[in-house]
């Protein structure tokens, strides 16, 4: 039905976009692979040169790498997990008719348009040990006896940054799931009502299966974004104290900032491969859909 004999037109039209993407993504990506096999520390320019797999071997022996990787796993698991749960709740609530729904939908998306730096800094101020509002609220509710410097303690810092990333991601999930909910045919629920299904049965047997695709795509996108996110943690804690809030991407960023480019490239190649493994089912699915 669509134009099959279009000659050179389609290629010509995608060429500009393709060139930019090639120049800014694929060439640097290849470059990163090359750099990861070199000693490339800008503070030691005389030592720059190929060293085989040395960087990778060093990474494997780096206990900080393993702890950051483990933390990335927890970061994604709890971060995306709770974003999903609260985002789903918000979507279900915003899907019901009530006065002021349009406004509620708009304002609940604001965290999504807020820069990561600002999110990091805003929450740093909320968590502040001396003047922070969270401590004040908890003290007033008698939940704690004295102020907790949330971001300065090894035991509280990681949960604190996870809460922040959850806060950031709720709107995106809510947005996608809300749109998905609107695509669920109302007759399904009517039929279930006739059969006497209760709210939970309807949720499990109609809502969730109908949203399967949306849930799948959104969760995967979110996993990749959250795993790659640097700005929130970097601006809250820089990965500290004592590396207790350092995820792998923050570790890589810190190493790159310290100008050890070879070592950080090796770690970022590993992160990319891990994320691609997560994304393969998604890409396969995408491929199949494009075929039709």
């Amino acid at each position: 039905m669509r134009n099959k004999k279009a000659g050179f037109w389609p290629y010509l039209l995608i060429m500009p976009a393709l060139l930019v993407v090639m120049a800014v993504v694929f060439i640097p990506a290849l470059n990163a692979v090359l750099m990861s096999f070199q000693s490339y520390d800008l503070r030691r320019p005389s030592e720059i040169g190929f060293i085989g797999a040395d960087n990778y071997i060093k990474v494997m022996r780096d206990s900080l790498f393993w702890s950051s990787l483990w933390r990335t796993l927890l970061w994604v698991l709890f971060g995306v997990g709770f974003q999903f749960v609260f985002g789903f709740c918000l979507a279900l609530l915003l899907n019901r008719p009530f006065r002021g729904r349009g406004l509620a939908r708009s304002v609940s998306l604001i965290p999504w348009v807020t820069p990561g730096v600002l999110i990091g800094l805003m929450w740093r101020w909320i968590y502040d040990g001396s003047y922070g509002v969270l401590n004040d609220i908890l003290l007033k509710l008698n939940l704690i006896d004295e102020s907790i410097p949330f971001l300065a303690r090894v035991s509280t810092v990681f949960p604190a940054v996870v809460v922040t990333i959850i806060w950031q991601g709720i709107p995106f999930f809510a947005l996608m799931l809300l749109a998905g909910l609107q695509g669920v045919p109302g007759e399904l629920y009517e039929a279930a009502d006739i059969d006497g299904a209760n709210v939970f049965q309807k949720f499990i047997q109609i809502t969730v299966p109908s949203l399967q695709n949306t849930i799948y795509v959104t969760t995967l996108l979110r996993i990749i974004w959250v795993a790659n996110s640097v700005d929130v943690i970097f601006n809250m804690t820089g990965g500290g104290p004592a590396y207790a809030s350092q995820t792998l991407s923050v570790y890589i960023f810190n190493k790159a900032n310290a100008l050890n480019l070879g070592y950080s490239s090796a770690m970022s190649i590993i992160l990319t491969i891990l994320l691609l493994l997560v994304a393969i089912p998604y890409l396969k699915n995408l491929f199949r859909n494009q075929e039709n």
Partner: protein
Amino acid sequence: MKGRKNSFYRVLNLHIPLIILLIFLLFPFYWTFVTSIKPERELYGSVVTYWPRQTTFKAYKDLFFDYNFLKPMGNSLLVALLTTSLTLSVASLASYSFSRFRFRGRRAFMILFLTNNMFPTVLLLIPLYAIMRNLGILYTPTALVLSYTTFTIPFSVWLLNGYLSDLPLSLEEAAMVDGANRPQAFIRIILPVLIPCLIATGVYIFMTSWNEYTFAVMFTNEESRTIPVALKNLIGQLGVQWDLLTAGGIITIIPVCVMFFFAQRRLVEGLTAGAVKG
């Protein structure tokens, strides 16, 4: 009796959870605003106040006069506008191609564009830094515009492809029967219909480049730095001046919020179309 019971349940399972979630989502913004209008004495006093006893806009004044916040705002605006126009041009051409032609390699190219987003920013950051330095464009707005264009292309192609696929082919076929060639048909017929969608996509691109930090912090210097970097730089040697920082934050999010509210409906439609269909 039943009506009363129903409205009680409605409050319990709709209003209360909704209000709790909205408070959680919005309180940080309220707190940021309140902080920005408190005088220093109250900010670092022994009692935390939930509405300033005394309001002041000194932080906003200082930000513009002592810290020259207009400069990074101008830089951000320049980068965001350039990125938006560049991405919109290349993405609309590419998505027109994807939605209107079936050609060899189409699928592979689409996947190529979409996988683009999966590379960790930290992976590209390092080699790009080296490349930009060699090209001599490090610390110029061009470095950021190029990087942001690349990150915004995939989503923009996705969005525009969704909108375009919903436009009937007969639109330009009719024009082409009348003797217009393909570029003419695109410019005269498709482009005008597409304008609202281009605006929505443009808002997404603008937002992304306005907010980006990781690349901006490495690719800019004193002269060319953008708002997110300037915000972070307010944290000086002597610790954080929270009144300045929160005032800067409020100034940063106002433009994107305003734009977002205007473009919201269509942007949300476009964003979700892909996920719901695909």
